[in-house]
């Protein structure tokens, strides 16, 4: 039986990586990811985790070292946040395009300037198009479970891609929560050993990372896009099998009291838990309202999203990032574009908040919903609202 332990979420990530028996960790510290990599270093130092730990000199090198270890078929893990994710930027594309499976936890953090170590989704959105599978999490248990699932998804012979597990910096990374830590034999049953079919091996020489002239680049890119979109099936299958072993079920898009609701709020990450309380309160007040939570960010779950919002009149999308100079929050833009061609669709409002660690309370989400409803009215000219800003 799994044990329920009160544990900081960052440490639970280390425990998940330990249970996955990772071979290589290459990481560089940055707030709010530090406790993750410190815990991993400690596990290695104590001999509890038999892994190489490469204390690299930058995040660019962290991700580069991960390319190398994945390329020889070693199970590879890293973690970062904010500026660190940005410093990895060009390397991230390579990991995905060269189909090098690995798992990275990202303790989501705002981007400079001004410098902020606190949480939002600016870093996530900046790496949106890198070709990684990306999954949001809401609480400590989900983070632990998702790290285990991420290895299985990444290494699935039908997938072979890197996976990012997003958790909100501080709001989730630094919380102490009761977490069911799985037993080793259960994890072994769920997660088979990593067998990379294309490893660098002198016995079977391969060339990895050849360059593409114009006659072949488009074909390579299309193949990548078709492949990434097709991984949704394997992701859902992994979550099904996870549920059959561990009893906890995850879906690409999840809803909360959304059935038939006229107005829907949409959130990602840990703020969804606060939003659920708001929904309960507003429901108790007799409001016809529900919540949609986006779990799978890449590949984007278009079908599931359309299904979840099809009966609503208004959809308020809450973004924790700004797409500077655009007309909506980054997630909202994608949601709008996913719905645009449908005959029957809700009107969509973009509300941005929770930037740089600013909290949004239960009452705050009620305000956000009301602002969104007003914005979505036919006569409204307002496209975007940045919530809770002092004038």
């Amino acid at each position: 039986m799994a044990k329920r332990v009160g544990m900081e979420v960052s440490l639970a990530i280390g425990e998940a990586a330990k249970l996955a028996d990772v071979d290589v960790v290459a990481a560089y510290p940055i707030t709010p990811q530090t406790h993750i990599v410190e815990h991993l270093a400690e596990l290695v130092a104590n001999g509890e985790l038999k892994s190489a730990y490469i204390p690299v000199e930058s995040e660019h090198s962290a991700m580069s070292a991960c390319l190398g270890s994945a390329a020889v078929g070693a199970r590879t893990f890293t973690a970062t946040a904010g500026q660190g994710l940005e410093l990895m930027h060009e390397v991230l594309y390579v990991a995905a395009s060269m189909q090098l499976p690995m798992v990275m936890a990202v303790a989501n953090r705002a981007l400079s300037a001004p410098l902020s170590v606190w949480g939002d989704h600016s870093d996530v959105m900046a790496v949106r198009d890198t070709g990684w599978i990306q999954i949001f999490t809401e609480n400590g248990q989900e983070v632990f479970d998702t790290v285990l699932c991420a290895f299985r998804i990444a290494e699935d012979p039908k997938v072979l891609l890197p996976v990012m597990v997003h958790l909100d910096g501080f709001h989730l990374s630094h919380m102490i929560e009761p977490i069911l830590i799985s037993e080793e034999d259960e994890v072994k049953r769920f997660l088979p050993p990593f067998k990379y079919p294309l490893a660098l091996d002198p016995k079977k020489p391969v060339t990895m990372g050849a360059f593409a002239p114009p006659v072949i680049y488009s074909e390579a890119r299309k193949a990548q896009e078709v492949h990434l979109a097709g991984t949704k099936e394997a992701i859902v299958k992994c979550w099904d099998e996870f549920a059959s072993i561990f009893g906890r079920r995850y879906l690409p898009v999840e809803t909360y009291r959304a059935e038939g609701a006229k107005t829907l709020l949409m959130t990602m990450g840990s703020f969804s838990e606060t939003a659920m309380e708001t929904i309960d309160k507003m429901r108790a007040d007799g409001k016809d309202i529900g919540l949609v939570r986006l779990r799978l960010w890449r590949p984007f779950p278009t079908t599931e999203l359309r299904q979840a919002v099809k009966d609503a009149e208004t959809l308020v999308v809450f973004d924790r990032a700004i797409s500077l100079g655009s007309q909506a929050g980054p997630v909202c833009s994608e949601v709008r574009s996913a719905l645009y061609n449908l005959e029957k669709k809700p009107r969509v409002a973009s509300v941005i908040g929770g930037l740089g660690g600013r909290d949004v309370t239960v009452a705050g989400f009620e305000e956000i919903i009301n602002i969104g409803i007003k914005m979505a009215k036919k006569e409204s000219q307002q496209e975007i609202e940045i919530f809770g800003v002092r004038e």
Partner: protein
Amino acid sequence: MTENYIAFGKRQVTKEEYFAPGHRACIGCAEALAVRLAAKALGPNTIIVAATGCMEIVASQMPWTSWRLPWIHTLFENTAAVASGIESGLRTLESKGKKPVEGINVVATAGDGGTSDIGLQALSGALERGHKFLYICWDNEAYMNTGIQRSSSTPYGASTTTAPAGKQSIGQMTWKKNLPAIVAAHNIPYVATACPSYPFDFMDKVVKGSKVDGPAYIHVFSVCPTGWRSAPEMSIELGRLAVQTGVFPLFEIENGKYKINVNTPKRKPVADYLKIQGRFRHLSEQEIKLIQDRVDKEYDALVERAEKDKAA
């Protein structure tokens, strides 16, 4: 794989080509020759990590490859970091009994730009961490792949496309960055300079570097007729002249001890070397004198250091 090419000569060199013919390097490219010789010296139990640059571009256009060794290219500035991951991955897989590694040579390679400029941080990190790998820098003294732009390894007085000679400029106004010394400052067990014009000396060094326990570094002087505006048939001769004038001395630093491998008691004047390259064509006698003085000073310091280490 022999360890003593100099003593036993060319009969010891394998006829096997691991860097296959048919690649698209320019005629007379000594950098491609160096790659070929290094691959022969390393043998088949080797993984090559390549940086973006001439040697990557000439050998890997999809769907072809010139490589008969496992080879990976990812980016420009990160080969030392990628090699760190490969080495750590292999070591762990072996220690966990998941995969036998059997002394695979992990060899990171990059040009002078990928090494002394944009990749210096990754290189320094990997050296400091003590990974067991060999790093080879192909130094053709500029960013050739992108069209002969200056690097910090471009020599004083050379004309390049981003430091061109003109009415107000002699071209490169700074002195070549001393990368072997910077690498040696990391106290790694083996550092060497080499040149494919001295093929057996070079191949011996590659074998030595691949066997030491810890990081090893070889800085390879690689004549580039396209970028240096020199005659393709002069590439081997130019490499010899660089050594014989003292412009690029061949030496090793083993566990901190310097040793000169090709002694040149009577050095030729640097003008012999400079005058057959278009990149130095504009230099006046005065500037050539300046370069001569600098080469003399640095060469004397090297000899002094080597003699001191020999006596110690």
